[in-house]
């Protein structure tokens, strides 16, 4: 079973890299760009047929290593 995980900085945490990317795109003429936040993306394959169990395992991975919950949020989605 395959999942995707995105980790992004929480709303209140300054994202200087995202700001610079946003400003650059706006300077390039992307006038409709309202806001951009930069994050990290993981694809994770789990040896487990039970979807809930597999998702719990990915959640645990996020909480224990992939995300720092003080500054980051994570989102898990099933890919296949």
């Amino acid at each position, binding site marked *: 079973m395959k999942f995707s995980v995105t980790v992004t900085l929480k709303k209140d*945490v*300054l994202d*200087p*890299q995202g700001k*610079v990317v946003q400003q650059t795109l706006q300077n390039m003429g992307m006038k409709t760009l309202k806001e951009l936040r930069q994050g990290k993306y993981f694809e994770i394959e789990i040896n487990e047929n039970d979807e809930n169990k597999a998702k719990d395992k990915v959640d645990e991975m996020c909480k224990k*290593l*992939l995300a*720092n919950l*003080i*500054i980051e949020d994570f989102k898990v989605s099933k890919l296949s």
Partner: protein
Amino acid sequence: MNSSVIVFPGSNCDRDIAAALEKLQFKNKMVWHKDSELPKSDLIVIPGGFSYGDYLRSGAIAAKSNIINEVIKAADRGCLILGVCNGFQILIETGLLEGALLRNKNLKFLSKDVFIKVIKNDNRFCNRYKAEQVIKLNIAHNEGNYFTNPEHLKMLEDKNLIAFKYCNEKGEANENSNPNGSLNNIAGIFNENKNILGMMPHPERMIEKSISSNDDGINLFSSLFN
């Protein structure tokens, strides 16, 4: 006193720390991250560098290494723990210290001498300094921008758990004297028992007047004998 310096792949201040400790007559041992036993230690130092190439987040991978389990046990027993720069980032990732170290506000790697203020001297790490003494140490980091939630920040201030603040030569901690955007100019913090200190500036780089602009770092190491 017996000390141990933990070495990770990518540590690069480990020898400097060892030289500082040996100059101060610590009996020091280097400990590889894969080891699962710590030598008898009164002080454990987690040095600066780029452990595991800063993959994922600075310090995140090192914080899950074998030896860190032993460091956590030793910390809980009251052993003195010092984390400098990447060592501070690792201590944060282990949860021994709270908060987070974000990218520097201006997105630049900073390598320069800065003034910092010793906040209090009634602790094991700073008792050879005067309270509010301004010292000059070197910083060299990309992720030193200290961040925490408002409740924890209040606790740090109320319980005097802030060890050092960035300041100017006169000791004024303000936006102009804040190199990396850290909340309240925080450069180093203690845990609640004050046996663990994490700091971004490098005291081990200021112990030899012949090669650095001053020797303001010596008193941090000599304080540990009191």
